[in-house]
């Protein structure tokens, strides 16, 4: 299986001590390392207001991880862990490598077009002088 990139976000109860969140992150990191996957990024967004109530809570402690893996079982394992973990009230895993690929492709395409452009702009400014002369004549 080729490498895939996942976004993993989970929300903890706002009253969980940060040490516990760190412990949870550590366990996730451990299971990621076990499956020889890579964690690209970990961000703790901190306490944020949620857009709607989850388990009667209005706020939550958001944690974001970006994981590169070629082992599908890993996601299953991580989700199981998150489901079991007490402080976690919500989690979401998304595969995003295909969109990233598309983005890179578009960026490359744009770059190439930008490189080609310098030869082109001759026709575009042409109408403007024409317009000016027309207004001057009239």
């Amino acid at each position: 299986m080729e490498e895939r990139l996942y976004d993993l976000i989970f929300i903890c109860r706002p009253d969980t001590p940060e040490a516990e969140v760190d412990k949870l992150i550590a366990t996730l990191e451990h299971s990621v390392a076990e499956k020889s996957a890579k964690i690209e990024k970990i961000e703790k967004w901190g306490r944020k207001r949620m857009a709607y109530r989850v388990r009667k809570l209005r706020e939550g402690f958001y944690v974001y991880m970006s994981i590169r893996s070629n082992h599908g079982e890993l996601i299953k394992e991580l989700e199981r862990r998150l489901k079991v973990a007490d402080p976690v009230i919500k989690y979401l895993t998304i595969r995003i490598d295909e969109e990233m690929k598309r983005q890179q492709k578009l960026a490359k395409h744009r770059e190439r077009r930008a490189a080609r452009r310098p030869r082109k702009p001759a026709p575009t400014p042409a109408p403007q002088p024409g317009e000016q002369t027309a207004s001057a004549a009239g």
Partner: protein
Amino acid sequence: MADPNVPQQPPAAAPPAESSALAEQKPAAAPAAEATPATAPSSAPSGQSSGQSSSVPSRGPSSGGYQGNRGPSRGPGGPGGGGAGGRPGPGGGPHKRGKRNYIRKKKVCRFCVDRVDYIDYKKADILAPFIQERGKILPRRMTGTCARHQRWLTVAIKRAQNIALLPFAAEF
């Protein structure tokens, strides 16, 4: 200049100031002739020529030719077409127009302007303007987003909803 033109042309082209009154009766011809002076106030002849006869194709500015093609072909769509084409020179236009044919500002896809290749679901503040107060996703016709970006946008909004960054529906 434009002698062989259809009878719609002469009244609109000769006095551009009057055309607001004429626009009520002849919506097909008036916007085309009216919007052209807006781009180049003193170049009435160029707008006239680009209307239908292609005697001076090089002279007709890009906007004039564009409107000329559009005006006669679809009559009722005239005001809209004039508004879209009159964009280059909005300074001269508005006070000449009648009350009815206001300038409809052409909506542009915000993501195309910024050259966005990926709409991030994590940035709720970017997605927020595209949902209604009750939480519905705004349609393309309201926001002007292009089809491609709207497609990405809906996916991003739905993802953001799932992780409570955006609401599914307003709460009370």
